[in-house]
């Protein structure tokens, strides 16, 4: 009997206290309607106070890139809050440089809307939309990379610049999260997006995408990204991709040759062994049609006795060997951080300004 009373007494107390807290939350964490001003009057919104800035913007169809789903662990959701964001939080400082802190850059997932708030968002992000789509192709490229093609439902079109990325919504135990993937399909295919997804053991996004079948529904937002392709056809384009970093390069190259059939362009692709090679045939065919496209695949650890006559060594070596210095160039890099660093150094030695080198580390 005494055990029953003990459980009842303690349980009752906890229930009572929880009730008090639930009521208190309803009454206290109610900031009413707050004004959310974007780019000084460009898009005035009214939102419910108490949410984070990221949630409020999301609810109003403004999709700020965020890979971690608002946990403050990716640092992607940087926006400028000019007024009303409260002081900088200790959860934000690790992701912001001193310069960013000075110019009021904040992490949208950490800033709570408690009062009227004034933010600045690059116009690029304001055109980001949410799409529902259906998987139309799911094809194995190598032992760990799959090509996934998503057909956008209805008559909606996506307008992207080559090199941009989308964020896929993937289910997780803590609710949906977003994961970023580069678009590999060229810009003229505006009713679909294609990605190359490398399976990361235990990864939420890649596991979800690898398990998809044709016909499954996928929600994504996009396009995001700061890659700007130079419109002057005289400028030579250098693309360097490592592993599935080839995805944005495919987009860039196919988009270029759709528009400028004679433009000069180099593609360098680095990977470990022959098992990691993909898309070589397609690029070789394209290079036959467009003689100004140079395709170089380099293996860093070719297997013993492998049938490989191309370049060996890390990818920055052929970049160094093959490029003439001091030409008008623009470069796009995508791959692991070490590769980006090595290639950036080589390209700067070749006389490319760092402003003309766009990269995406992962």
């Amino acid at each position, binding site marked *: 009997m*005494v055990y029953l*009373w*003990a459980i009842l*007494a*303690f349980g009752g*107390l*906890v229930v009572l*206290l*929880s009730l*008090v*807290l639930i009521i*208190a*939350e309803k009454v*206290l*964490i109610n*900031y009413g309607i707050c004004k959310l001003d974007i780019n000084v009057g460009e898009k005035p919104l009214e939102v419910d106070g108490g949410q984070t800035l990221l949630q409020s913007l999301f609810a109003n169809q403004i999709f700020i890139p965020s890979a971690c789903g608002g946990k403050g662990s990716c640092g992607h959701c940087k926006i400028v809050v000019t007024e009303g964001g*409260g*002081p900088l*939080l*200790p959860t934000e400082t690790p992701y912001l440089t001193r310069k960013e802190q000075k110019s009021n850059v904040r992490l949208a997932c950490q800033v709570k809307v*408690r009062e009227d708030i004034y933010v600045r968002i690059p116009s690029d992000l304001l055109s980001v939309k949410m799409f529902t789509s259906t998987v139309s192709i799911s094809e194995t490229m190598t032992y760990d990379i799959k090509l996934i093609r998503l057909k956008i439902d209805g008559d909606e079109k996506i307008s992207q610049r080559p090199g941009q990325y989308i964020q896929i919504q993937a289910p997780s135990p803590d609710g949906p999260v977003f994961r970023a993937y580069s678009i590999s399909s060229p810009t003229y295919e505006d009713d679909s997006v294609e990605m190359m997804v490398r399976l990361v053991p235990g990864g939420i996004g890649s596991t979800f995408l690898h398990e998809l079948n044709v016909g499954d529904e996928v929600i994504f937002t996009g396009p995001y990204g700061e890659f700007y392709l130079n419109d002057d056809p005289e400028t030579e384009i250098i693309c360097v991709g490592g592993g599935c970093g080839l995805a944005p390069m495919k987009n860039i190259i196919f988009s270029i040759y759709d528009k400028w059939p004679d433009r000069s362009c180099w593609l360098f692709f680095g990977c470990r062994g022959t098992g990691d090679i993909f898309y070589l045939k397609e690029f070789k065919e394209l290079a036959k049609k467009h003689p100004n496209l140079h395709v170089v695949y380099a293996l860093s650890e070719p297997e013993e006795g492998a049938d490989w006559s191309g370049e060996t060594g890390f990818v920055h070596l052929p970049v160094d060997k093959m490029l003439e210095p001091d030409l008008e160039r623009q470069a796009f890099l995508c791959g692991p951080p070490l590769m980006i660093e090595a290639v950036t150094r080589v390209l700067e030695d070749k006389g490319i300004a760092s402003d003309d080198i766009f990269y995406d580390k992962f």
Partner: protein
Amino acid sequence: MNETSAIVILIAAIFTNNILLANFLGMCSFVACSNQIGTAIGLGTAVTFVTVTTSMINFAVYHYVLVPLELAHLQFIVFIAVIAAFVQFVEMFVERFSPKLYFALGIFLPLITVNCAILGASMFLIIRNYTFAQSVGFGFGGGLGWMLAIVLMAGLRQKMRYSNIPKPFENVPIAMIVTGVLAMAFMGFGGMVSIQ
């Protein structure tokens, strides 16, 4: 049941039996949050509020629920649950009405949950067999005493910022030493009133 009036207990809990300086309860937030007088007053107010309310609730829960049901041995877990819920409440309250204090206190606001001064106050009033009025006096006095100690400390530390403290003693070590000196100074109140 002792006959000391609630007012005397309140005074005693502030000066002679200061929960921090006589019993050394609640030291962690005392050392960590005593750099600014403003923050110290804010945290002190929050602790006072939580101490006095939880003393009342814990008194009622103990005497009207736990004792009749012969469950007095559950007092720890019950008291902790009450305190945790109240701190949560205070956190919401402070976040709503004083965002500045909310950010200044940071992690130390939720950490009031495990401030031993608060659980200590609740335990003392059971051990010493206080009546309800005495418990309120003790809880209030205990909170005020803790606040007095942290505000004094913050004042001293603000002054100390301009003094030449030997390198090894900077920050926490000197704070510990100053706390000891403060405690000894408070012993001077000893003869004024006494509660056991």
